[in-house]
């Protein structure tokens, strides 16, 4: 598992660079890199079909969730690269622990892992903000090389942009993975059988669909939209009377969305 984790952390770092710093060729979209990872895992590690469907559905949902989180100006953008990679390593880890996807638990596990992956992406966005603040000092510092005429040294500062951003993403995937490992027993015990939970999944999907429809037709303000899936999830978990972890997760998601909304409003 350590080799797999290291490989996905490396991929996560490289894709994050492609996403923000170099190129923007769209290789770092979840809908592109998760299917490619699924293909590689199927060819070399014989990934079972239900895990394939799980990851592909996860890729579609994540992609649609992040579709309109655009890196415009100083906007607050969740890290979709880390989120997608976390979804893959988390599922591979649970598989190694003996987790089997079946007709009863697929919806619960999908919503649970997607919620965790989305949380990871929002927490990671705060580290991105910190790095961007640090970059201000770094760029300010590099001004002295222009004033002293050391242009080669000024240009060499560029490599720090790559190193810092790569390391940040590499370390983060490791950290989130080990946090998940700490709570893996609880996670496995909460993925209980019960096909009525499929209903939560359909509402979750409907929330995304509504979000996409609203965004594409642009009748409403973009910043108000992600709140619907979170609200629907909270109401449904309360109505269903299921485990406290669900309620905790949904409340956490709700808080994250509220913070995002607040930032969106402040940024105009």
């Amino acid at each position, binding site marked *: 598992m350590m080799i797999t984790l290291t490989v996905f952390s490396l991929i996560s770092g490289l894709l994050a660079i492609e996403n923000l*710093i170099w190129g923007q060729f769209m290789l770092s979209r979840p*809908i592109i890199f998760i*299917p490619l990872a699924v293909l590689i895992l199927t060819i070399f590690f014989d990934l079972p079909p239900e895990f394939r469907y799980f990851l592909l559905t996860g890729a579609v949902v994540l*992609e649609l969730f992040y579709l309109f989180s*655009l890196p415009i100006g100083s906007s607050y953008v969740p890290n979709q690269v880390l989120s997608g990679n976390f979804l893959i390593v988390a599922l591979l880890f649970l598989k190694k622990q003996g987790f089997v996807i079946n*007709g009863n638990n697929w919806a619960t596990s999908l919503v649970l892992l997607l919620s965790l992956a989305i949380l990871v992406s929002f927490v990671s966005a705060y580290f991105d903000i910190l790095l961007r*603040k640090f970059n201000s000092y770094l760029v300010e510092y590099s001004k002295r090389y222009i004033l002293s005429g050391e242009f080669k040294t000024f240009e060499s500062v*560029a490599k720090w942009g790559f190193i810092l951003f790569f390391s940040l993403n590499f370390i983060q995937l490791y950290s989130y993975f080990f946090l998940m490992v700490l709570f893996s027993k609880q996670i496995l015990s909460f993925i209980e059988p019960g096909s009525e939970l499929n209903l939560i999944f359909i*509402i979750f999907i409907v929330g995304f669909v509504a979000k996409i429809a609203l965004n594409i*037709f642009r009748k409403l303000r973009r910043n108000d939209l992600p709140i619907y899936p979170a609200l629907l999830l909270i109401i449904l978990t309360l109505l269903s009377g299921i485990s406290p972890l669900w309620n905790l997760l949904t409340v956490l998601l709700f808080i994250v969305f509220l913070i995002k909304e607040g930032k969106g409003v402040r940024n105009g």
Partner: protein
Amino acid sequence: MGKIGLNRVLKKVVRRMLSVQNLWSYKYMQLYGYLYAIIPVYRFLFGKEEMKQRLIKEWSYFNTQPYMSSYILALHSKMLLLNEDEAKIVSMRNSLMAPLASIGDSFFWFNLRTFLIAFCTLSVALLVEGFKGTVFVALAIGLAFFNYVHFYYRMGGFKRTFRHGRLAFKFTKKFYFFEKTLNYSSYLLFVVSFSLVLSKVFEMTDVKTSIWFYIFIFFMIADYLVIKYIRREWAVFLFNLAVAVLLVTWGII
């Protein structure tokens, strides 16, 4: 200062242009990446002292859509070649960055990228249906299409703008039509692909596929009508909530 030397320098600028967002910061935004890309032209044209004097005048924030920065970099290079005053160059840079960012965000982020994602979602939906080989060809085609348009404006834009010495970008009716076509076709692709993915996923459960498929289509149409005719956020929310509560009640019964 031969033509071969200049071409080599411009190629270097084009290469460095890809990392215009490097060291993006809240204070200066893309300034570092921009200066990093344009420095080879300064080095080619000026001595150390003049270069220092000119670059220090460039030290103010810069931000635009990363693909559209190529137009500003090309004009900047051309103006340097014509030995224009640095204040004039900074003024050009500051006046162009916001309008180009606006066009770039709308075209690349909202429409072209959405189209690519819709196309890839459909491909993945087909993979779920079992067409393993074709889907990766489809993903490659989607990426190739996106990057063809991207490079046409990014690299081609740099080349054309530098050659003509003016902004080689026209916001024509043809361009607007292309943008709108991408927008609506991506919506259609989303509907088709989402229904495919859902229908396959629900086959894995003990619930009849057709029921979920009809619920999904019902939500799609109903939400669209609510958005179109009522145009209120609370209306969409209340509508979704009411249907969700109904479904839960139905599920419990």
